[in-house]
């Protein structure tokens, strides 16, 4: 706990940094030695307050010591998606340093790295949002180092170049290391528009490079939030009512306090957006004792009527709501007329479940609230697995009513994110608890807490209507989404009269040239907290949308892929992706009896991918998923092997969501509490996956982490239809035995 206070070097520097450009390419006068608020991601427990000696800050992202050691500050938390390599590589490529010679540290939400969400990971945005910006950071520093060398040698800049962390004078072969140049370079102005490298000269970007976190993760040395330790720390487990929305009436901790190691039990609040939940925290000298103490608590809850909530009734209410018109999201042409005029109409209703994120690392946080946090030098400090240091800082500052600058955040390796760690309830709760008990405290959720308490991915139901022209093309297409809303469950202000863009995500964005297209949204009230889940609403609405396209294709008597391509006359990314997929999947080769293949594509804010799923009928009356082919369109790729891994992972997650348990409510609480009932895909159920990346340049860069997910469920259901003739319209469904 010896970290130097953030404001040690005075206000002027901080204000300067705040006013600096958002590219982050600011410079510092002199040699700041100790105000670095890096998260000590390596060996955290032994060095909680690591301070770099004699370090020059070329930009907030690049720190060079006289010894030559280079530290790159990574603003994007590592949640398994590879940003611990891909983002620093953008900087290192332009800086002309090899990534294995660099120390990588996570930023903690400091304002010098930009505004809200600039240090968060979500929406598959780290590369598509930072590709040029991060390269500019590295290029600026490279130009400053070259300028410093040319000044020292008194030669033209043009005669010098950078290579392998040194600057070379071409005519003489003279060299100076970055360590030797850092101090004078840090005093130079930062180039506003540095010259970026020609991609042909890239040594890292675009190539499958090993990720530096992998060796740490195979040896047990990677520090996750749950592994953080500070002196004097105590542990807590919190009893919260699984009937969400219940109020705490009273609790009796007399038996809990008799458990060896238990120190106290206190009331504590959990904040999830607009929702405030109450719980009882049991504090102990070790986590096991805290758990035993928690079991011994006697707690009275007032369920506020929420104990009658159940999934069957709620689903029925959604089906009833499907009759209402809802609010129009996207409209082209005249759907009603085109539909009415067509002799060839089709209607279908699709249903999907609520699911959990179930990161392998349960929610947890270590917080240390120092009394007098408003005074200089005092702060509340957190060590946490979170998808955003800036998000933690913001939510903790608001919850504790302290200045954001006095919240210090250490972002550690996340044991999974999937959107769950965009909500910082676990962090604010630990911070408030530390304030209450006056000690550093680590709160660890049990798996049951993690599964029962949300926030969850919402379910969506979809009412589909479509009509075909005489030549078998879709002329009218309507997608009406009926669902609870993430926004409505999280925010006080929600306007039901406006279309909910998040809940209609992607439904108006597909490139099919359908002249009469209409999307609608019908909101259903729910008191259960809901949030973003990998690929958000595309994870459910793509199932309805792309299965219904398949239904229309069959009604038209057309091959499902040919039917889609016929509606993609214009040259679009979607057309290129499907054309590539047709080739790599061998779509036109016939399959043996008992096998079938299905196709789906999906384009949404995060990116674009398409998949072919191949299934075989099995002996139990179900199907086995044999293989998944995926084409993902990126425009530009940073680390192809990471992309492949992300697609493999997205497919595994999508199969779980489509074919495992999901969450259902009974008497106000989720029926599934742990992995025995909320089952996850296992190794014996994982199909072969073949990934093809389209990186053919172009003005935009598409995302990696999410686009591999939405096509899976519809492609799988379409494959089941091809193999068995059974049309799946409700998720989850049992692969072992088709209903």
């Amino acid at each position, binding site marked *: 706990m010896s970290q130097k206070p953030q404001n040690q070097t005075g206000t002027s520097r901080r204000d300067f940094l705040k006013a600096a450009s958002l590219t982050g390419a600011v410079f510092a006068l002199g040699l700041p030695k100790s105000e670095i608020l890096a998260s000590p991601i390596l060996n955290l427990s032994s060095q909680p307050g690591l301070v770099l000696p004699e370090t020059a800050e070329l930009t907030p992202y690049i720190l060079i010591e006289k010894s030559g050691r280079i530290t790159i500050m990574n603003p994007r938390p590592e949640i398994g998606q590879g940003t611990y390599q891909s983002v620093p590589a953008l900087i290192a490529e332009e800086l002309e340093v090899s990534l294995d010679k660099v120390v990588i540290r996570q930023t903690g939400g400091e304002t010098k790295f930009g505004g809200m969400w600039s240090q968060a990971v979500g929406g598959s945005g780290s590369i598509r949002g930072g590709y040029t910006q991060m390269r500019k950071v590295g290029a600026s520093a490279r130009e400053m180092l070259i300028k410093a060398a040319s000044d020292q040698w008194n030669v033209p800049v043009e005669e010098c170049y950078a290579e392998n962390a040194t600057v070379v004078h071409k005519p003489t072969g003279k060299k100076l290391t970055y360590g030797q140049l850092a101090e004078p370079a840090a005093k130079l102005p930062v180039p506003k528009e540095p010259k970026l490298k020609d991609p042909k000269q890239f040594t890292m970007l675009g190539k499958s490079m090993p990720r530096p976190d992998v060796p740490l993760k195979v040896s047990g040395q990677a520090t996750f939030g749950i592994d953080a330790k500070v002196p004097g720390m105590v542990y807590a487990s919190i009893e919260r009512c699984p009937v969400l929305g219940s109020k705490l009436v009273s609790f009796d901790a007399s038996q809990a306090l008799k458990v060896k190691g238990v120190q106290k039990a206190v009331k504590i609040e959990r904040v999830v957006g607009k929702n405030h939940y109450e719980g009882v925290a049991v504090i102990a000298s070790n986590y096991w004792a805290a758990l035993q103490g928690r079991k011994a608590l006697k707690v009275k809850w007032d369920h506020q009527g929420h104990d009658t909530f159940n999934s069957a009734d709620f689903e029925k209410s959604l089906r009833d709501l499907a009759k209402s018109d809802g609010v129009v999201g996207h409209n082209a042409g005249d759907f009603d007329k085109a539909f009415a005029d067509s002799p060839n109409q089709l209607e279908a209703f699709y249903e999907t479940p609520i699911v959990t994120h179930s990161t392998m690392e349960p929610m947890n946080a270590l917080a240390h609230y120092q009394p007098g946090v408003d005074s200089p030098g005092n702060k509340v400090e957190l060590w946490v697995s979170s998808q955003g240091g800036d998000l933690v800082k913001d939510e903790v500052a608001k919850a504790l009513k302290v200045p954001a600058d006095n919240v210090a955040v250490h972002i550690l390796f996340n044991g999974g994110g999937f959107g769950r760690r965009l909500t910082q309830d676990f962090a604010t709760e630990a911070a408030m608890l530390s304030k209450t008990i006056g000690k550093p405290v680590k709160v660890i959720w049990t798996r049951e807490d993690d599964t029962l308490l949300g926030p969850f991915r919402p379910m969506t139901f979809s009412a589909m209507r479509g009509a075909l022209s005489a030549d078998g093309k879709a002329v009218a297409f309507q997608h009406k989404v009926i669902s609870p809303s993430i926004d409505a469950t999280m925010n006080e202000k929600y306007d039901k009269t406006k279309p909910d863009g998040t809940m209609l995500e992607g439904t108006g964005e597909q490139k099919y040239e359908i002249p009469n297209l209409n999307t609608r949204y019908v909101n259903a009230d729910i008191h259960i907290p809901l949030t973003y889940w990998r690929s958000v609403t595309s994870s459910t609405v793509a199932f309805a949308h792309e299965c219904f396209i398949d239904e229309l294709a069959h009604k038209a008597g057309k091959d499902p892929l040919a039917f889609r391509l016929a509606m993609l006359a214009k040259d679009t990314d979607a057309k290129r992706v499907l054309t590539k997929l047709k080739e790599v999947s061998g779509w036109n080769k016939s399959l043996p009896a008992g096998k079938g293949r299905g196709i789906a594509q999906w384009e949404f804010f995060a990116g674009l991918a398409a998949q072919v799923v191949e299934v075989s009928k099995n002996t139990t009356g179900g199907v086995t998923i044999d293989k998944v082919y995926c084409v993902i369109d990126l425009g530009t790729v940073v680390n192809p092997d990471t992309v492949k891994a992300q697609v493999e992972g997205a*497919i595994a997650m999508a199969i779980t969501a489509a074919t495992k348990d999901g969450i259902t409510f009974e008497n106000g609480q989720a029926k599934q509490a742990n992995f025995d009932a909320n089952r996850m895909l296992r190794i014996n159920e994982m199909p072969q996956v073949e990934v093809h990346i389209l990186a053919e340049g172009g003005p935009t860069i598409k995302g990696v982490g999410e686009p591999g997910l939405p096509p899976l469920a519809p492609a799988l259901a379409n494959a089941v239809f091809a193999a068995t003739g059974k049309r799946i319209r409700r998720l989850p469904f049992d692969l072992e035995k088709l209903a």
Partner: protein
Amino acid sequence: MASVKLTINNQAHTLDVDPEMPLLWAIRDVVGLTGTKFGCGIAQCGACTVHLDGNPTRSCSIPVSAVVGQKITTIEGISKNADHPVQKAWVEHQVPQCGYCQSGQIMSAVALLKQTPKPTDADIDTAMQGNICRCGTYNRIRQAIHTASAEMGSSPKMPKSNPKIGKR
């Protein structure tokens, strides 16, 4: 509380803990080895897998009192420099994503290869089914196990006094 003597990674530890405390929490909170992870607490996910006398065991569901006298090995104990063939294969195939489950995956794989040096895909399915990976690294796990198996089978260790010296 009671005094419990455990041998972890060939080191003797005397712990002053509740004998009912699961081995997982003794390893993590008391001994301070955090490579072994908490995932579910009911032996359903395998994140907490350690070896008891070489056998893969879910440390979240076995009390310390039940493991006295047994040789306990954690991820930190399977090699000195993270150079066990399974760890090397895991790096070669870039298996981990978030990495949280991987200590347990590796412990299960090391135990599998000890018992079945040339595992079939069916052997891998059986041995690794108890380890959940939410990031979906299963296909790489399978490939890495085959690679480690080949490595362990094909290269008998050269005596240290007689190293091979490659010519440049």
